[in-house]
């Protein structure tokens, strides 16, 4: 069975291999989903308490990141953790909560389509990547450098360059469908 190929699994696999930038990106991408879930289920709570819970969940994901098996899809793992911690946090605040995270994520994904007329021009898509990913895609995809050469220049191993390239292409595919960077 091939390892799961979606963008979050990609980022987290790189993160577990030591890629701090990929890990930061993963956490930043997950955070709006967390805010959505906690905002939806904890409507009565003040904003700063909601953000506290978001941070608690991020800390839990961080503390238990080593329990994700890279050959399994990441969303069930993530949702199980989020569900567990959100219920804990709300129970501590005296509310019973029944969390259906899949519903909330669909709502958020639909929300994230910013401009349906976003150009599929490659340069524009690359421009929406972070500096290092953009550099890698330009170097390997356009300037036709080898991954080793790029790795040597950026201080990364060839394997890390290939993983970063793969993740960047997946992100560009999402941008092309209209997701916000």
């Amino acid at each position, binding site marked *: 069975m091939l390892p799961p190929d979606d963008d979050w699994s990609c980022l987290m696999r790189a993160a*577990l291999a030591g890629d701090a930038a990929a*890990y930061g990106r993963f*956490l930043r991408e997950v955070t709006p989903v967390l805010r959505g879930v906690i905002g939806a289920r904890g409507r009565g709570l003040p904003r700063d308490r909601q953000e506290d819970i978001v941070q608690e969940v991020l*800390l*839990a994901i961080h503390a238990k990141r080593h329990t994700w098996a890279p050959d399994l899809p990441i969303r069930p*793992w993530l949702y199980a*953790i989020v569900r567990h911690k959100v219920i804990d946090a709300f129970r501590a605040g005296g509310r019973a909560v029944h969390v259906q995270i899949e519903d909330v994520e669909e709502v958020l994904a639909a929300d994230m389509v910013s401009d349906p007329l976003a150009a599929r021009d490659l340069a524009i898509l690359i421009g929406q990547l972070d500096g290092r990913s953009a550099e890698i895609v330009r170097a390997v995809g356009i300037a036709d450098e080898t991954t080793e050469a790029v790795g040597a220049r950026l201080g990364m191993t060839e394997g890390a360059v290939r993983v970063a390239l793969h993740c960047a292409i997946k992100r560009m595919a999402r941008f092309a469908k209209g997701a916000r960077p």
Partner: protein
Amino acid sequence: MRTEDLIRHLAQEPARPSFDGARLAVLLLAVLVSVCALFLLLAGVRPDLGRALQEPILWAKPLLPAALCLIALRAAVLSARPGQPLGAWPRALVVPAAAAALLWLRAFALLPPDQRFAEVGPLSLSECLGLIPLLALVPAAVLVALLRQGAPVRPRLTGLLAGLAAGAGSATGYSLFCTRDNPLFFVTWYGLAILVVAAGTALAAPRFLRW
């Protein structure tokens, strides 16, 4: 602290080694073997072990609890990864239980009424119901401590499975000491002892499995 700052801080931390279920299982089995070996050293293996092992039915005494232990252990380890499906492992627990039930029914059918429950008495019961849970205390505590390294999202289930593994593992060792060979005795009372350990761990473990 702003969430962005938190994320930046978390991203800097080094990666941790992966949760290794196999290593955990081996550690727990080593603890079980050590506890049982110590017990058998002090209390003595049953003197007629050689003769007993020649009777196929008496292989069930150690093997059925051993199978239960390994299945429960596997399920417990899986339950420590969030979102991980437990697969057929919880259902597989039925297999040794059903085999034990069949043994019980067979013995019931074959034995004359006055011999069926002859071995039940205060001494035999307190030995069995006392020693198996006692032997299981340390393995159950160790297993729960090891499972804390994971992230169990159903702590009571994880506790139950851990208790089953520890209780069944201890029963396996105990069976090499016990000379009561009537399935109507050992299936009933080992079974009860294992369930007591499982229930106790299910009740006590969640407090220690929080994260």
